[in-house]
């Protein structure tokens, strides 16, 4: 918004064009974004944690959201996934080729079953459950077995449960946690807990995955693995990914586009190489200094 920098020019689907009818599918280039957020704002009392933020994510894109601490990145996630109610603005999303849906005022579990999944910055695993069970919970919105099925254990609900177990185990293999499947989730090392959160989010069959600082607390080796995992998710499953990350190496090498936030506002967006050289971004990270 503030910076009409050259990054915007290079982007084939610029924000201006997006704004008229991102959700109606009347795109000039024919490809519709899976997520389009329009002037999203969130006030906490007097604090404006989000200020007129626009964003769109194209199918199969890996987009990074960066910014200094307290910039409002997590708040953005929370507003889009329904945990917070945005003060103003619109959130539209939909699978590729399907009609889009406005996600404001929809409760989080509906948003999840619609196909948006997330992980948490401060890990929120189900600590009394095993690793496998954590992922199984993620299947909840895709399974149907009810109380009667639970009591009578009819073939349908037993099959469904076995499918859930198999699916959960396959996801654990995907993130490399299969050997720990019987372990209690709270006993996992930090990096493994983050991967488990990703597996749990994947269990909900999302088309759009939000990762809040997935590499925090990981060692370099684990970060490399995580990078591979994110790419695999995009390439194999075609999931679009939005990630918040402070590890610049990871952000720069992984993302197709980057959005930068500061004090609740979007200060820049574009390709990694442009963001790297953007004076405003540099100032936001390093403070007001000419020799930065």
């Amino acid at each position, binding site marked *: 918004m503030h910076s009409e920098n050259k990054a915007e020019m290079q982007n084939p689907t610029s924000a201006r064009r997006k704004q008229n009818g991102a959700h109606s599918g009347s795109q000039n280039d024919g490809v519709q974004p899976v997520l389009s957020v329009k002037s999203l704002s969130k006030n906490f009392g007097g604090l404006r944690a989000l200020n007129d933020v626009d964003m769109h994510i194209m199918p199969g894109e890996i987009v990074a959201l960066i910014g200094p601490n307290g910039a409002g990145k997590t708040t953005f996630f929370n507003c889009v996934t329904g945990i917070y109610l945005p003060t103003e603005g619109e959130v539209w999303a939909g699978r590729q080729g399907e009609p889009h849906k406005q996600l404001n005022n929809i*409760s989080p*579990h509906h948003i999840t079953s619609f196909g948006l999944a997330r992980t948490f910055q401060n890990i*929120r695993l*189900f600590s*009394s459950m095993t690793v496998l069970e954590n992922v199984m*919970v993620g299947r909840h*919105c895709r399974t149907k077995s009810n109380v009667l099925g639970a009591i009578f254990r009819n073939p349908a609900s037993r099959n469904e449960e076995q499918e859930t177990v198999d699916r959960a185990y*396959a996801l654990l293999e995907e993130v490399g946690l299969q050997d720990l*499947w019987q372990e209690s989730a709270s006993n996992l090392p930090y990096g493994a807990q983050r991967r488990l959160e990703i597996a749990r989010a994947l269990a909900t069959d999302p088309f759009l995955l939000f990762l809040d600082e997935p590499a925090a607390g990981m060692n370099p080796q684990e970060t490399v693995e995580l990078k591979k995992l994110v790419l695999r998710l995009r390439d194999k499953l075609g999931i679009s990914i939005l990630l918040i990350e402070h590890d610049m190496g990871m952000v720069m090498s992984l993302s197709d586009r980057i959005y930068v936030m500061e004090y609740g506002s979007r200060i820049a967006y574009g390709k990694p190489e442009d963001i790297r050289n953007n004076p405003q971004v540099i100032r936001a990270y390093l403070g007001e200094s000419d020799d930065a």
Partner: protein
Amino acid sequence: MFLSAKRLFRSLMVSLWFMCLVFPIMGIKIVKKVAVYSFDSVFYLGIGIFFASLAWAWYFEVYLQGGMEKDGKKSLFAPVGQCWKKITTKIEDTPSAGKYTLLILLVVFSILPFVSSMYQTTIFALAFLYVMLALGLNIVVGIAGQLVLGYAAFYAIGAYTYALLNQYLGFGFWICLPIAGFVTVIAGFVLAFPVLKLRGDYLAIVTLGFGEIVRLLITNFSDFTGGAKGVSNIPRPSFFGMELSPNMNTIYVYYLALFAALITIVVVARLKDSRVGMALQALKDDEIASEAMGIDLRKTKLAAFALGSCWAGFAGVLFAARNSFISPASFTFMDSVMILSMVVLGGMGSITGVALAALILALMPEYLRAFSEYRMLIFGLVMVLMMIFRPQGMIPPSKRKYYPSALFGKKGSGKNDSAQKFSANTIAHGNSLNESTEGEKHA
């Protein structure tokens, strides 16, 4: 050293403090409006407390440090501590221990009416009702983590549903049983709706209020409910349309209660291990995460309250039929607390643990009549000790075993299966980290 100066001084202080505390109660007696002081009894108590506190401090060191003194020497009591540790871990490592206990109990219970007195039979029938109640509350508190303090209200609603339907409309036991279940489920919804957004302490307070409201309503609507005098002459259940002799009927009710308790155990156990049960557990662990995983908080909480309250309804009908007389005095806050204690002592979320705790707590007062004055004291002491030494309850909830096809093959796909399953079972008991070595060892 066992008798270090610091430890002695601490015990001395504890005993002095205790003496001050009990002095007004034990040291002063009012005889004919004159205070008579008796210091010696307080003094003896102080000495007792002194030694008890010494033993207490010592025990903690044994328990926490595995019997090692601070300077690395093995203390005199190390074997005791280690032995105790061994026993507790042994119990923890055999999750089937509780199940076997229940099975043996089942055999004993099924022949009990023929080998013991009528009095025993009625007492045990009541204990089975408590098993139902405790397991019902276990769904709400133990599995779903919603602290409900007014559970006796549902029990009362069930009992009064039968009593009043019978009194005014002449409905029999077997018709009232499902009706009462339905009515308590509705009551569960009524309570759940306003508390959907509440958690922890606030939920506890509102549910406590609910319990009191129900009890006071029953007491004060005396024209309709009989008020504090209660409802009497409630018929006992008929046996395929036949009236039984009083003794036979007692036995009949006994078996009904036993059967109902069994059904409760099976159903609650199955619920816990299901998709619905998993959603309830997720709710207990983290509400925000479960919402983000696609679990409908509203629906799940309502389900928890409904599933939990219906058992109290069934138990209430059986209670009314067993007693043939009910009054609000049977459904006080103390009863709610008692049921909650069964859940906490047994182990939140554990089926076997809660069932056993319910049996123990329901039967204890009957068999410890001699100590009835100290009942609450003993009870409180047991609670405090449990919370210190075994906060997870008598038997922690057992973990369900899963069989991913990737490890175990498709069900019934061949003989290879059994070998694989065997190694997998050893994994389940051992450390999952070294799966292969474990499996090979046993092969």
